[in-house]
């Protein structure tokens, strides 16, 4: 087997402060990396295509460093990583749809984002007119007394669209196959040639529930590429916004999961707390989701004394009310009956897929970008990362519960040590092409942003990878052997993003 290539590994502080360069590798070395991934030496952070090349970002967990490898694909093909390392499969299918690059040797050559409805093929590659596509072939299922239940893309609740095909024996699910891509908006191509301001606008609208996290990831990539020194107060305010966003989402999820287990009272209670967070965000930063508040170079709004007071009062209120909700969850046997043991995600799967956030941490994967690939302001804060090993819906609820508590602690720490000074600095092009990498812990897990800028500071390529890319496949595994009626519960405990995944 070919020896592993010498990649340019970079530690977290360094890649956020300076431009990033991908290491060019030969096809045989690329394949050697794929083997190293499948052997568990590294974690796949993402895989994407560029004009005439394929790239993958790798994380070396032990050494806390990352690298990007780039293989030439000028011939229109590159060696498949997915055939050796399953987590790369859907990313490769997406790259093939968008750029027309073939992952050679891939086991699954079906389109993924392209449903044959765009009028063109390979919108970021040759952009040739659409040829009629055969109907999407779901994987064959064979066996006695099986029946199929197709669900979606339109779902019963107020949620995003996607298609789920269940194969069941009686009530028990023997296979779930997902089909996504319905919310594909073509963000990658809208990014091409865009100004940084326009890029930030799009990044903040990639997955609405994570608008702060996406904006920070995009800003990090810009600031690294152009070596921008961001004021310390801006970092602190970004931290406050990011934790408020996490708080709001986790509170909503805890209630939502309980509601899907027919315990509506919890949703009403956490819904009150969530609404209070959004109102505080509006009072402090001028928008309930804090959209467009984080921009390359800093933040667009400063926090005044009144805003600080509102956030302090909010945290005091949550600290006061949340413990009794936790007790309510913990002592309601009928609820536990639904969540304990349901939707098991094997620790090995979580590790192999590099599943981020509560999905990974509930299955023993002890990883948090804020701690392991640290960035400001978290380098100045005490941060605990909860990990559990039960791997079920209940564990995913508990991770969220603990993180709600930690959010309160982080916000208090930040408010107690708010630096003074400016909140925004100028971002100017540097007269040469540059690339940068951003990595941020959103509420769902780690969000990656890869950005290549031209000499004028316009966007050549922007690739954003939602945590859901590595969580959706695990949902297929989690539901196996469960009853169909438990799917909403499992699904909500994952709460994957459709829009963030479909782009």
């Amino acid at each position, binding site marked *: 087997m070919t020896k592993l290539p010498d990649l340019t590994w970079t530690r977290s502080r360094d890649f956020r402060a300076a431009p990033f360069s991908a290491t060019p590798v030969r096809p045989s070395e690329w394949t050697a990396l794929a083997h190293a991934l499948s052997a568990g030496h590294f974690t796949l952070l993402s895989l994407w295509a560029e004009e005439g090349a394929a790239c993958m970002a790798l994380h070396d967990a032990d050494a806390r460093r990352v690298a990007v490898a780039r293989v030439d694909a000028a011939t229109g093909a590159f060696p498949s990583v997915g055939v050796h390392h399953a987590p790369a499969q859907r990313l490769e299918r997406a790259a093939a749809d968008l750029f027309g690059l073939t992952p050679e040797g891939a086991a699954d050559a079906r389109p993924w984002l392209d*449903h044959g409805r765009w009028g063109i093929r390979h919108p970021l590659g040759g952009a040739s007119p659409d040829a009629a596509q055969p109907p999407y072939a779901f994987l064959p299922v064979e066996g006695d007394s099986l029946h199929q239940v197709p669900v979606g893309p339109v779902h019963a609740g107020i949620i995003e669209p996607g298609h789920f095909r269940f194969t069941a024996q009686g009530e028990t699910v023997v296979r779930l196959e997902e089909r996504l891509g*319905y*919310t594909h*908006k073509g963000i990658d191509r809208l990014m091409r040639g865009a100004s940084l301001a326009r890029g930030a606008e799009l990044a903040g*609208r990639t997955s609405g529930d994570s608008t702060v996290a996406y904006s920070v990831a995009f800003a990090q990539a810009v600031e690294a590429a152009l070596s921008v020194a961001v004021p310390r107060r801006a970092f602190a305010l970004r931290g406050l916004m990011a934790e408020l966003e996490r708080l709001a989402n986790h509170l909503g999820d805890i209630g939502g999961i309980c509601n899907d287990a027919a315990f509506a009272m919890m949703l009403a209670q956490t819904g009150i707390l969530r*609404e209070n967070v959004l109102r505080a965000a509006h009072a402090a930063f001028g928008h*309930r989701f804090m959209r467009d508040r984080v921009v390359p170079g800093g933040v667009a709004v400063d926090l005044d004394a009144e805003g600080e007071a509102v956030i302090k009062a909010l945290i005091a209120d949550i600290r006061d009310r949340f413990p009794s909700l936790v007790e309510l969850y913990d002592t309601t046997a009928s609820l536990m009956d639904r969540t304990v043991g349901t939707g098991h995600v094997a620790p090995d799967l979580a590790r192999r897929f590099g599943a981020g956030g509560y999905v990974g941490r509930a299955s023993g994967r002890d990883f948090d970008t804020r701690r392991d690939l640290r960035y400001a302001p978290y380098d100045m804060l005490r941060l605990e990362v909860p990990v559990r090993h039960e791997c079920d819906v209940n564990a995913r609820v508990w991770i969220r519960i603990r993180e709600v508590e930690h959010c309160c602690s982080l916000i208090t720490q930040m408010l107690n040590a708010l630096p003074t000074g400016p909140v925004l600095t100028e971002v100017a092009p540097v007269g040469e092409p540059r690339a940068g990498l951003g990595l941020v812990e959103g509420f769902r897990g780690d969000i990656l942003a890869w950005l290549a800028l031209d000499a004028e500071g316009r966007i050549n390529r922007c690739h954003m990878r939602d945590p859901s890319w590595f969580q959706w496949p695990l949902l297929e595994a989690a539901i196996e052997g469960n009853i169909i009626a438990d799917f909403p519960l499992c699904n909500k405990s994952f709460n994957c993003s459709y829009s963030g995944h479909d782009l």
Partner: protein
Amino acid sequence: MRRYLLEGLMRRPLTETAPLPDADAQDQLAAAFARTVRTKLGRSLAIRHVDAGSCNGCELELQALSNPFYDLERFGLHFVASPRHADVLTVTGPVTHNMAEALRRTYDAMPSPKWVIAIGDCAKCGGCFADSYAVAGGVDAVVPVDLHIPGCAPDPTALLKGMVALVERMGSGAEPN
């Protein structure tokens, strides 16, 4: 749990005790809405929602309508799971080509008379995704729209106001589709 249930019985509803920044407007809105829905549609209006490609931000605010602060159902408005039970279709997002058919079919499955509310800046004309190869346009590129509620995302009060406006218009002779 018993404590919560008891508290729920004893305490005045949150909707009244928690003062809103624009509490007056909210109360007026609530009163006006309750009156109109009652006269026009008996007591209730069933809403079916379709996300036609949104970023999911608009969905979050639609979900918030059901929290105890806004409590949509007290106005006789409720979300239903099937288009066949719905009077109103709410649609968010730029309509992606991948979702256009599903949206059309949902609309077709609704019995007449029916109304469509397009929610959010994206639903107007595609918003910041308008020029994409993957986007068909705003909601009216696929189904006729009766009302558009702007915002990114429109907050729950804006959503409530929009729904009142639609109900008002239903009474003023605007033809449904």
